[in-house]
């Protein structure tokens, strides 16, 4: 596969590490219940089709990316930095 890194351009998938579904959000704070954290750590959908997933460009720019990929065809619809860019930054 080739992943279109928004910083580096299209790169071979060998340069990246896969993490998985990008949708679960970490429950923050001292009030977090074990059930909520359990869902965050373990519960994943496994859709046949469009999935937003996290990839780390470890052999490139070290950016964590959210890649929208079709799990059936590997077609990649989008790849964006996981870290939101603040308005006003030069990049």
């Amino acid at each position, binding site marked *: 596969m080739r992943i279109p890194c928004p910083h580096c351009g299209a790169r071979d998938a060998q340069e990246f590490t896969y993490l998985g579904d990008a949708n679960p959000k970490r429950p923050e704070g001292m009030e*977090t219940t074990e059930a909520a*954290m359990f869902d965050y750590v373990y519960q994943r959908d496994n859709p046949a089709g469009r999935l937003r997933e996290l990839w780390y460009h470890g052999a490139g720019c*070290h950016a964590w990316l959210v890649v929208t990929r079709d799990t059936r065809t590997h077609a990649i619809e989008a790849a964006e930095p996981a*870290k939101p860019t603040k308005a006003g930054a030069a990049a």
Partner: protein
Amino acid sequence: MSTQPFRLAAGGLVDRTQAQSFRFDGKRYEGYAGDTLASALLANGVRLVGRSFKYHRPRGILSAGAEEPNALVELRAGARREPNTRATVAELYHGLEARSQNRWPSLAFDLLSVNSLFGAGLVAGFYYKTFMWPAAFWEKLYEPLIRRAAGLGRAAPHEDPDHYEKAFAFCDVLVIGGGPAGLAAALAAGRSGARVILCDEDFRLGGALLAEKREIDGQPAAEWLAATLAELASLPDVTVMPRSTVYGVYDHGIYGVVERVNDHLPVPPAHQPRQRAWRVNAKRAVLAAGAIERPIVFAGNDTPGVMLAGAVRAYVNRYGVLPGREAVIFTSGDDGWATARDLAAAGATVAAIVDPRAEIDAGLMAMAGQIGARVFAGSVVSSASGGRALDRVTIRDASGREQSIACDLLAVSNGWNPTLHLTSHQNTRPIWDEAIHAFVPGQMPAGLSVAGSAAGRFSLAQALEDGARQGTEAALDCGFAGKAELPPRKTDLEGIALSPVWRVKDGKGRSLGKAFVDFQNDVTDKDVELAAREGFKPVEHLKRYTTLGMATDQGKTSNIAGLAIMAELTAKTIPETGTTIFRPPYTPVAIGALGGHHRGRDFRPTRLAPTHQWSQDQGAVFVESGAWMRAQYYPKPGETDWLTTVNREVLAVRNGVGLCDVSTLGKIDIQGADAAEFLERVYINGWKALPVGKARYGLMLREDGFVMDDGTTSRLAETHFLTTTTTANAGKVMQHLEFCHQVLWPSLDVRLVSVSEQWAQAAIAGPKARAVLQGVVDPQYDISNEAFPYLAAREITVGGGIPARLFRISFSGELAYELAVPADYGDAMMRALMAAGEAHDICAYGTEALGVMRIEKGHVAGNELSGQTTARDLGLGKMMSAKKDYIGRVMAKREALVEAERPSFVGFKAVDPGQRLRAGAHFIALGKPATMENDEGYMTSVAYSPNLKHWMGLGLLKNGASRIGERIRAVDPVRNGDIEVEICSPVFVDPEGTRLHV
């Protein structure tokens, strides 16, 4: 010339001025440059080249290309021996050596061909049915027997001495196949300015044009070919790669190509690889791989001398070789008739043309008359015979009347299958085209289009037109508008009418012998019938039950016939029966080529510390630690075993001073206004209160509550920290911290960068450490116990102004420091410390001694940070802050992770101090049997303590912490160990830690 009795006096593309001698089964022959092994063997009248896989039947040469199922040989000798090489694509070179396979004791007389006589027992499913019982017989009896009898060739007995490479290429348009369609496509795309790569598996470009006598624009096709190749060579962004097979299509325009750089030479020239595996990244690709001719299934169709009609033309026209002198043609379409014409023109007798069609084109009939060939219309060849060489065929007409004709060559044609394998590598299926009686590409992988015969457009005119159009469109897709319109080419006429006959059944109730569907795996039409009878009707079942299409040729000549026969047996159409789908590779690829540079020492990168040369100069023995080479111990002359050396090193540190490289630890520079807050969230313990100039031990968990890594972090300034990781986890921790920073808490101002490579770092440990250090630290820095206490961490200078970082941290439990200098000075630092320590008998020590001392102190390391332990398990539960949230906090409190029964960290010593402990031993209560139910944990680390003069162990034991003083057994069934041990504190030496603070 007399040495090549079947070589034509003239013609063909071989170079008659370059004779090349070669050996086949030890016998010497001669061929010419431009031959394949197959053409050279045929030129010498060698028909019998191998024995078949299952029945050991004599086999000859069927084809003239990559589809060859029969003519598999062992090429080369010794370490370069390569089994299962197709003689039809092996380029001849002077001195080539080849041996036939699957025969014993000789090719002509093969004892195991009795398999053929008792063949009734070896039908489809035979292995599954016969060798099932008793199970114990499989390993000892059946498998060795089958392996000896079958097997395809022998692997080389030694390591491959040659070099292989991987390589990466990028282009706009990849053209796959260098026949007329591919050349036209490459030319069209190349002229537009696109970057083009043209790959062809052959050593000579031209494809079908090389095998056929054709005309383009009224001129011999060779002229068009030469002009096209010359123009391609003149285009700077066009790369033509002969001897290069595109073997696979992968996601997003990636194509696997294997280039046989030097397979045509006995030994690759110096500095050159034998093969190169390319990964080609193409924006667009055009598949122009041509087509593969189909045989017909009839009795004795595997007799040497039965060949594909198109292959016969290739041997005659390209190689100047007559595959036989008395030929019969058996063809179900017009195309086979061209073979009769070309054979006659080359001087062979064409005794008969057999065509199952009742009506034959008048022009073809006239041609047959001219060459004196008898025509048997509405007839079939019902059997071929002759054993090791064809001598006779039987022809059966529509009424069932049979007659036999003597011949030494039977050219068979049953139409062509588009070479569409690559189009289905992305799991898209081909579709049946009734008009041409063949599968054609269906849905295509993104970016790939198909031209010419590979698309089922078989005529030369179509190939040229199609190629030019596909090449132009592909370039256009990449943003290159065609500069020159390619005019349509006028070609001579050719017949493509076809009425395929899939198999010729036995007549009048008698069996004529075996009729093969799959030559390489010895699958007959009877096997397909059996599969149908036993219910293995779906195509995937048929394949697995009969092994049809599963050999190294992957059924290139057999799959469609197998499908067609199953369709007939089940009264379905071919498309209803199923389609064949292909996976990479198209033809076999050597593992060596896929591995490339990465074998032996270069299997993966090796990392060397900046102090490596110094360690080597000290005589270090190195050990692999992840990718790093670390000094394990430093034997002195006269020390014959490692334990003696390690004991000396440990005692030297505890009683004096030692020096150890710790450069391999991961070092992460963390800066930013929120750096302390960030550390609070990733470590279980607190950081905000850590003063500037101090270090602290930290433990981080994974989000699931298990320990990830540990190490010290120093606060260099209010917003500047330096975190260290274990050697093994440096990369993983960096990735984790980047995740936390970028994904979890992007709003924190924290900036991370690895500085692992910048700093060489050494541990100076032992009661005399300070005295040694004072010899290298610049005098303005006070490192007295008062000014630089335990856990101090500061930026200093050494050696007269070299920037350095000094940390008073200790893994050994002694007074100890870690000194870091820029890596260029790492070597000098070690030498300077050794010089400064000479008066104190300083001793270099390695990871073994380091390990002994950490076990003496009960410090956890890699064996304990196994990914299955919690902070609590390791006795570090008290570090877990209750005042803040951090990664892993919630999940670490899960019921099962905090229950008392859970194995926790304790020390062990043998009740008999003379006994050796073993890591990996399991704890079983005294008097209980050593079973899973009685397992109470295991020993994680052991070492011999030269201070205590006995072995010590660390381990995880149920309720461990509350059982100090109890006795238990350490059972090690693998090494027959069963030792009574006492449970003790994991801190064996200086439990009060007084030595740290001196």
